[in-house]
């Protein structure tokens, strides 16, 4: 299939070997590992911006009425926080960073199928992010629609909605191209002998994710284009005054944006599935069930969007069906959780930071998943719809799930990426601080949500204040943990002890090559003889 490379460059991918020096050697590189790291840095920067805005919201909510900002600014805050965190951090957060870095190595390839397209989608990502941030500072003020751009408000508000939706469109296009690249990579670049069922489970998760990216993102693309056309030309797609139907917008939006939740969480589950066998030194329990449940989540997740719209007006039959499918999609997620627990059973557990993060993930994800069923059931939904219960549920899944999985992934692959080890003790302390802060921040929101605290509200009744204060304190604790984690990682990337090639005794291919990996990953493409996760 491929011509043998004549000479093997023995330097690592971190050393500059090109025509260009310094930063240009990175910005023009088509190497999947460098692109993965560039995504990581960009996303970490956006994440910090999102966290700061989140903290500002928490400070605002510490007392009823005005604390630090005006209501309109607050509307801008939650919209900008949403756009940055969803489109620029969480959606590309694992597949574009660790997917890029690990996928080719884990399937025994030297790069992705289309390296130049990969770099192109990185620049699309940067360009889209640039527009999104620009939309906050231009004349008409930041968009105030919430990240979901619900019509008809989004087609009538005077704020910079066009630029924000254009940004989301471009970010979506970047996501599509990454997904396309990964699908082709998995189909065409696997090492000889690596059948689909000999692939490690992180690539499986990425593969399922890539299909959702490919099949769902265009729908939101056209929907956002329609919003833009509506604003520019007053067409009337979603404007009742001209005959349009705003609920149709909600359908089109959630046809993408619900599967998008699985774009966020599936790679996270993949990461956890890599970490647990390694730190239990035990073959993963139910390999096929985990692999196929990723595909099942991708497939069924496509059909549950209606559960965001129980109160928007739908026929009784649709309500029933969407609720049923929502419960069905919980099954493959639960299968994964049980398989992870079964893998730990009788394993020799090593409580290193990545494993600790993975445990926190399971805890938080389970709370998020079960409260998801409260929202998915028709009767209870009416009570908690559009309350801070939704906010808490969502953050348990996305931050507690995807976010903690991303931290787990950083701590797991860090020695491979930089060839250096971070301070284990500091990482452990940081993870525990974050876990405590996280629960302080979001758990009270469940309670006041059930009691009727609406989401996205600037003001509230005084009886909610104790919970809001606990939340705000939790926000600061969480941020303290984040600062410690970032400090530890940034310092260790330069000054940490040298890490061996396989510090965790992992079995997948990335641990069989030096740390940091050579430019071309493998001197000789390996021949795969057996299933992954065979610990000797």
């Amino acid at each position: 299939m491929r011509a043998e490379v004549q000479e093997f460059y023995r330097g690592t991918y971190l050393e500059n070997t090109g025509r260009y020096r310094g930063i240009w050697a990175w910005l023009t590189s088509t190497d999947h590992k460098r692109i993965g790291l560039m995504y990581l840095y960009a996303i970490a920067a956006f994440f910090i911006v999102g966290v700061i805005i989140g903290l500002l919201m928490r400070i605002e909510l510490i007392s009823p009425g005005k604390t630090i900002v005006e209501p309109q600014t607050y509307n801008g805050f939650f919209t900008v926080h949403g756009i940055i965190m969803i489109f620029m951090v969480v959606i590309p957060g694992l597949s574009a960073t660790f997917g890029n870095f690990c996928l080719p190595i884990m399937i025994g390839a030297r790069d992705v199928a289309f390296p130049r397209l990969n770099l192109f989608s990185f620049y699309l990502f940067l360009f889209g992010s640039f527009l999104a941030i620009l939309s906050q500072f231009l004349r008409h003020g930041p968009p105030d629609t919430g990240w979901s751009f619900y019509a008809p408000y989004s087609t009538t508000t005077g704020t910079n909605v066009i630029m924000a939706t254009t940004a989301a469109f471009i970010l979506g296009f970047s996501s599509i191209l990454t997904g396309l690249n990964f699908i082709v990579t998995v189909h065409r670049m696997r090492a000889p002998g690596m059948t689909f069922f000999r692939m490690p489970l992180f690539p499986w998760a990425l593969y399922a994710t890539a299909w959702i990216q490919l099949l769902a993102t265009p729908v939101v693309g056209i929907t956002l284009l329609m919003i833009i056309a509506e604003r520019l030309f007053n067409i009337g797609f979603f404007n009742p005054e001209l005959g349009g139907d705003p609920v149709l917008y909600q359908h089109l939006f959630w046809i993408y944006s619900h599967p998008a939740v699985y774009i966020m969480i599936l790679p996270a589950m993949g990461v956890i599935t890599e970490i647990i066998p390694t730190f239990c030194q035990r073959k993963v329990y139910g390999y096929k069930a985990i692999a196929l449940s990723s595909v099942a989540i991708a497939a069924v997740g496509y059909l549950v969007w209606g559960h965001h719209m129980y109160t928007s007006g739908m026929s009784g039959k649709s309500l029933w069906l969407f609720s049923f499918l929502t419960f069905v999609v919980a099954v493959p997620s639960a299968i994964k959780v049980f398989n992870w627990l079964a893998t730990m059973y009788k394993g020799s557990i090593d409580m290193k930071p990545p494993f600790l993060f993975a445990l926190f993930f399971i805890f938080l994800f389970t709370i998020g998943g079960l409260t998801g069923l409260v929202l998915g059931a028709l009767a209870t939904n009416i009570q908690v719809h559009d309350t801070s219960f939704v906010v808490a549920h969502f953050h348990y899944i996305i931050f507690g799930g995807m976010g903690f999985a991303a931290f787990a992934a950083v701590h797991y692959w860090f020695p491979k990426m930089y060839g250096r080890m971070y301070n284990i003790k500091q990482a452990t302390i940081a993870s525990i601080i974050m876990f405590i802060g996280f629960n302080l921040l979001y758990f009270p929101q469940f309670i006041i949500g059930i009691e009727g605290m609406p989401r996205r509200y600037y003001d509230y009744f005084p009886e909610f204040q104790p919970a809001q204060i606990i939340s705000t304190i939790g926000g600061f604790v969480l941020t303290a943990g984040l600062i410690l984690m970032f400090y530890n990682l940034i310092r260790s990337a330069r000054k940490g002890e040298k890490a061996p090639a396989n510090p965790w005794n992992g079995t997948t291919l990335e641990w069989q090559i030096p740390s940091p990996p050579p430019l071309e990953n493998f001197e000789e493409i390996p021949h795969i003889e057996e299933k992954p996760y065979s610990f000797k």
Partner: protein
Amino acid sequence: MEHQAKAHLLEHRDDEASKLGMWLFIFTEILLFGGLFLVYAVYRAMYHTQFHEASLELNVIFGAVNTIVLLVSSMAVAMALTALQENKVKLSRQLIWLTILCAFIFLVNKYFEWGGKFEHDIYPGSELLKKLEHGHILYFGLYFAMTGLHALHVTVGMIILIVVERRIKAGKVHAGKFVFLENAALYWHLVDLIWIFLFPLLYLIT
């Protein structure tokens, strides 16, 4: 990087992968238009009489000519690929130019068709349209949105075909390495295919 460039040159020649990538991209394009088709279907069901009345405004002759033009262009690009595979470079380039010419004729036709509508004060936000009923407004909104997005794809297709033609001329795309032309032709067929659906939906069904 020189070494890297060489390695990549040797490695990244996988025509099957390129074609698979193109097919996946075509899926995304179909889903992109799928959103518009869905909106069309919903509003057609909601306002079927008004859609019927509004569609009578369109000129079937214009639409039919454009359909034929696009079908000819698709045939031409398919023949260009076969010609290149048989190493008839000159013929292949001529057929690509024929395809581009057809695309151009399509756009000119479209220009006059849209121009006619504008002259009759039929465009989104126009004074006349505001006085019409909801179904009429949405029909013409969809007409401009769908044919407009399609025309954009025609333009992109033309640019891609011009690039392919330049590359064939430069000898970079040839009988031994024609996947770029094949992918361009696939994309062109997609553009054609979408029109094949737009034509009956907008012009023929009444």
